[in-house]
């Protein structure tokens, strides 16, 4: 098509669209001219004036039909039809406010929730990332073949092997979590504990980011010893340096030594789970203290044109080589390449997809519900449609009108849905547990979401509108005569199918939400065996370079001498905090009691037994821990001043350890050894305590051994050597724990001004986050499920009420022939319960398949949990039964005489 022709055609279309009346007038003039020419011709042939005009009119035929046919050539009829249909649809909506409200509200909730969640997913999958060529950035994770789903970071031998034995990467670097004490700033901000990362050379380059101010690290910055330069995060720059534009080049005290600020990163820069506050150079050394532990985050940039698959191939080869080089630590371990987006968002994708699944079900139910309403309304529009057909409307035209009405409905719903989506996103941000929130916060209600809502609305229209439109059209077009009641009756079957489908879908949702709620209840109802009220906790870590010194290697791990100064430090913290007014008691434990992260485990060798008794969790504690937590002793005693390093080494075990390691025996007085180091001495069990949970997301207790932090060997191997210098202190307070935050921090600072107390917060910081997350999740699912069940019940009610009104005559006859009220009620309810039963059977089958997908998100509940299925079934059938009550009552009240007269 030439450009000139295209231009000409578009001008004509626009003219017919916007100057319709002018175009129509011209058409009339054109035909009038023709008419006059005909008349002239007839006159010239000798006819009289009147006869000439009549003959001309006969020749011209049906003038308005001709005009119509000419107008049809403009190819815009559909548009004008649509305008008319839309106006008619709006009038119908105004005239049926109840129908419109129910239909639009249920669709709006579905469309809105769907838009919100897809918007969040869209942002994660396609949102801009603040990196150059983000699709070439990967993270390298390792995993144990025993638990391949669990991604673990890498050790230094891994890092050097990946760096030296591969060629797909343009740059590769490693990062390590770090924390430092930041001295007060010149504008008076107090000293604080900050959490950041060490970045080796190559990390900034692999990520391809530019600083907001200053520079990132130069090669000369990577030196052994404490860092001399630091890059600040936007947050730290704003908070601690009050966004000082001249901050680059200034010196600050980091762990007491002066460090130069060389740069500030942009606000949105982050690539790890917790946004760090600063970055310092990291110079990994093969045999360093922490070489063996898998703590290092590896980031790489693929060479241009290289693929993830190629990189994975190389990593598989390197992992096999590592297993040969370091059999002690690397046999049974693999490595995997993770694209950046997956590394950033992978963990939240599954919950979002689950919600999306639930929302899709809700939307389907809403569609089925509206389809049922449309069908019911279609019956009452029988006359109108038959009239249209009689006046010459074609089938397609009637379908189009019915679909336009559906489309108007879903567009209204989409507009309302956008409001729902906006509210939903706010709720997602507010209610999502902290680590996810900052990322979700960035989701704007953008053009894409508008498009998404629009597309959803159109698809929804087709889903709920097409079926009823075809059914109505087919049912009523055949019964051409206005007012005729005969004709094929397909609507009851279609309605029954719709209702069954809704009940099946609602059942699936009820089961899913039931499983989540049960999960939550199990977790919330577990016995902590301690009293968390009034307990303040804080962490204290002596830097490893102050108390650990490498002596050699043992089983692939560095082996180190432990300096007793760390223990003295911890001891002095105990004494210093105990003097704070309001502190009732204080004790310490090497890892938080309810800990979602790594818990050290050691193998236990019973005295006299041939084989080790298995792995147990291992904590170092101070005396008085169980009294502070109010954890009951079953038997025996706590650690006290008798248990000095020189006295006999002792241990306390929990119930589960007592049962598992010494089955059928009394553990008190028994001895055992731990495989931590060769010179760990045998320990005698002096007490048994109730199980305190060790993991925040498990209710199955695991065996635990508590040892005194003073009765420890002077040499230790990694990875657990660091527990000798770290403590989570638990402070039982007489008043509100939060009021003691400042005094406790001061008391800690008195002991060591360089090491601040970290994570000062009530002990609930360890017990609650997992529960909040699960609560949030099960609450959302419960809302969806209740909504779905409610919609299904409304549908059931609607269908039955309609059936009663249709069968008034028949019921009247039955009553007058002596049918008992019970028989009438049974007859009416049978249909609904049959439909509900069918739906439930389909629902059970669907739920059995679908809930298996949720297995990894459930705690301590099987996906095919019989109790949940039964309760969901009872709930749904009860809802269906209660939907029968009103229609059945109406059926029973039918006056036979009146009913018989009615027709």
């Amino acid at each position: 098509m030439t450009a000139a022709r295209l231009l000409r055609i578009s001008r004509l279309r626009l003219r017919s669209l916007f100057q319709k009346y002018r175009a129509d007038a011209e058409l009339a003039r054109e035909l009038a001219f023709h008419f006059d020419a005909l008349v002239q011709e007839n006159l010239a042939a000798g006819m009289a004036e009147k006869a000439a005009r009549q003959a001309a009119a006969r020749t011209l035929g049906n003038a308005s039909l001709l005009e119509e046919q000419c107008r049809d050539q403009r190819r815009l009829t559909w548009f004008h039809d649509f305008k008319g249909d839309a106006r008619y649809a709006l009038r119908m909506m105004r005239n049926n406010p109840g129908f419109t409200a129910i239909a639009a509200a249920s669709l709006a909730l579905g469309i809105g929730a769907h838009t919100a969640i897809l918007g969040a997913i869209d942002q994660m999958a396609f949102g801009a990332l603040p990196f150059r060529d983000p699709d070439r950035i990967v993270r390298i994770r390792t995993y144990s073949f025993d638990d391949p789903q669990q991604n673990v970071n890498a050790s230094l031998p891994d890092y050097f092997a990946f760096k030296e034995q591969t060629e797909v990467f343009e740059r590769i670097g490693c990062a390590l979590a770090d924390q430092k004490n930041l001295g007060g700033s010149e504008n008076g901000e107090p000293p604080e504990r900050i959490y950041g990362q060490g970045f080796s050379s190559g990390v900034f380059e692999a990520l391809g980011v530019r600083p907001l101010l200053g520079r990132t690290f130069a090669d000369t910055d990577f030196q052994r010893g404490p860092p001399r330069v630091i890059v600040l995060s936007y947050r730290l720059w704003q908070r601690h340096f009050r966004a000082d534009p001249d901050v680059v080049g200034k010196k600050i005290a980091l762990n007491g030594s002066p460090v130069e600020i060389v740069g500030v990163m942009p606000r949105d820069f982050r690539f790890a789970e917790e946004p760090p506050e600063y970055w310092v150079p990291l110079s990994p050394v093969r045999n360093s203290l922490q070489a063996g532990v898998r703590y290092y985050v590896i980031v790489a940039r693929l060479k241009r044109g290289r693929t993830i698959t190629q990189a994975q191939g190389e990593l598989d080869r390197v992992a096999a080589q590592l297993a040969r080089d370091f059999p002690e630590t690397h046999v049974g371990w693999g490595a995997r390449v993770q694209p950046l987006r997956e590394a950033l968002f992978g963990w939240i994708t599954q919950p979002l997809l689950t919600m999306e699944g639930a929302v899709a079900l809700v939307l389907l139910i809403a569609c089925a519900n509206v389809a049922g309403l449309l069908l019911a309304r279609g019956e009452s529009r029988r006359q109108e449609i038959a009239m249209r057909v009689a006046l010459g409307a074609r089938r397609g035209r009637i379908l189009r009108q019915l679909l336009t009405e559906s489309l108007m409905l879903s567009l209204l719903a989409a507009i309302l849905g956008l409001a729902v989506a906006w509210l939903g996103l706010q709720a997602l941000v507010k209610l999502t547990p902290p680590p996810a929130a900052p990322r979700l916060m960035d989701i704007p209600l953008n053009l894409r979401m508008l498009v998404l809502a629009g597309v959803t609305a159109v698809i929804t229209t087709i889903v709920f509108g097409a079926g009823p439109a075809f059914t109505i059209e087919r049912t009523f077009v055949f019964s051409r005569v206005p007012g005729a009641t005969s004709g094929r009756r397909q609507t009851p079957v279609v309605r029954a199918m719709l209702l069954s489908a809704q009940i099946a879908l609602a059942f699936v949702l009820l089961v899913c939400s039931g499983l989540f709620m049960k999960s939550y209840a199990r977790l919330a109802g577990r016995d902590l065996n301690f009293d968390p009220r009034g307990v303040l906790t804080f962490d204290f870590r002596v830097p490893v370079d102050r108390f650990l010194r490498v002596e050699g290697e043992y089983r692939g791990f560095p082996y180190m001498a432990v300096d007793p100064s760390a223990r003295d430090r911890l001891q002095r913290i105990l004494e210093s905090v105990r003097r704070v007014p309001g502190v009732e008691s204080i004790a310490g434990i090497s890892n938080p009691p309810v800990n979602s992260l790594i818990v050290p485990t050691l193998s236990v060798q019973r005295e006299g037994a041939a084989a080790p008794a298995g792995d147990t969790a291992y904590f170092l504690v101070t005396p008085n821990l169980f009294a502070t937590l109010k954890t009951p002793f079953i038997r025996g005693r706590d650690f006290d001043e008798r248990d000095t390093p020189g006295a006999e080494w002792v241990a306390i075990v929990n119930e589960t350890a007592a049962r598992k390691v010494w089955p059928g025996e009394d553990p008190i007085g028994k001895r055992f050894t731990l495989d931590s180091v060769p010179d760990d001495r045998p320990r005698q069990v002096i007490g048994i305590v109730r199980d305190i949970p060790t993991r925040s997301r498990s209710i199955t207790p695991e065996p635990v051994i508590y040892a005194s932090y003073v009765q420890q060997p002077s040499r230790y191997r990694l990875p657990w050597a660091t527990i000798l210098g770290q403590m989570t202190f638990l402070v039982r307070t007489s008043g509100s724990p939060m009021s003691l935050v400042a005094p406790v921090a001061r008391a800690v600072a008195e002991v060591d001004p360089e090491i601040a107390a970290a994570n000062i917060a009530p002990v609930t910081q360890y017990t609650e986050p997992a529960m909040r997350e699960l609560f949030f999740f099960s609450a959302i699912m419960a809302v969806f499920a209740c909504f779905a069940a409610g919609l299904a019940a409304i549908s059931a009610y609607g269908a039955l009420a309609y059936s009663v009104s249709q069968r008034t005559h028949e019921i009247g006859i039955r009553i007058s022939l002596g049918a008992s009220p019970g028989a009438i009620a049974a007859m009416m309810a049978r249909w609904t319960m049959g439909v509900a039963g069918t739906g439930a059977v389909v629902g059970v089958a669907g739920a059995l398949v679908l809930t298996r997908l949720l297995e990894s998100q459930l705690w301590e509940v099987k996906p095919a949990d019989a109790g949940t299925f039964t309760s969901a079934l009872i709930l749904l059938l009860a809802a269906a039964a209660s939907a029968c009550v009103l229609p059945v009552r109406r059926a029973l009240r039918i006056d036979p005489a009146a009913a018989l007269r009615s027709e």
Partner: protein
Amino acid sequence: MPKPSDLLQGTLDLLILKSLHREPLHGWAISKRILQLSDDVLCVQQGSLYPALHRLEQQGWISAEWKETDLGRSAKFYSLTRDGKRQLERELESWRRLSSAVGLLLKRA
């Protein structure tokens, strides 16, 4: 006399385009021109003519303009566009192919 529906599909378009080949004409004149050039054989009814004219206009082959007739009345004159001329060539070509094929068939069969 054949009715318009007896005309081969697409022939009406060809006749209209061809009749506009020399000069712009209004609808009445087009029907007269076709009648006259075909020695009163082809009579195009207005019921077919005007939809066809509007279709050709909407397709961009012909353009319309309001002008005075010789008798001083204003009428809608149609003329070939540049694209319309090329379209006429194409239609003529396919018509020649068709009629020669039909001619051959009638001669040999």
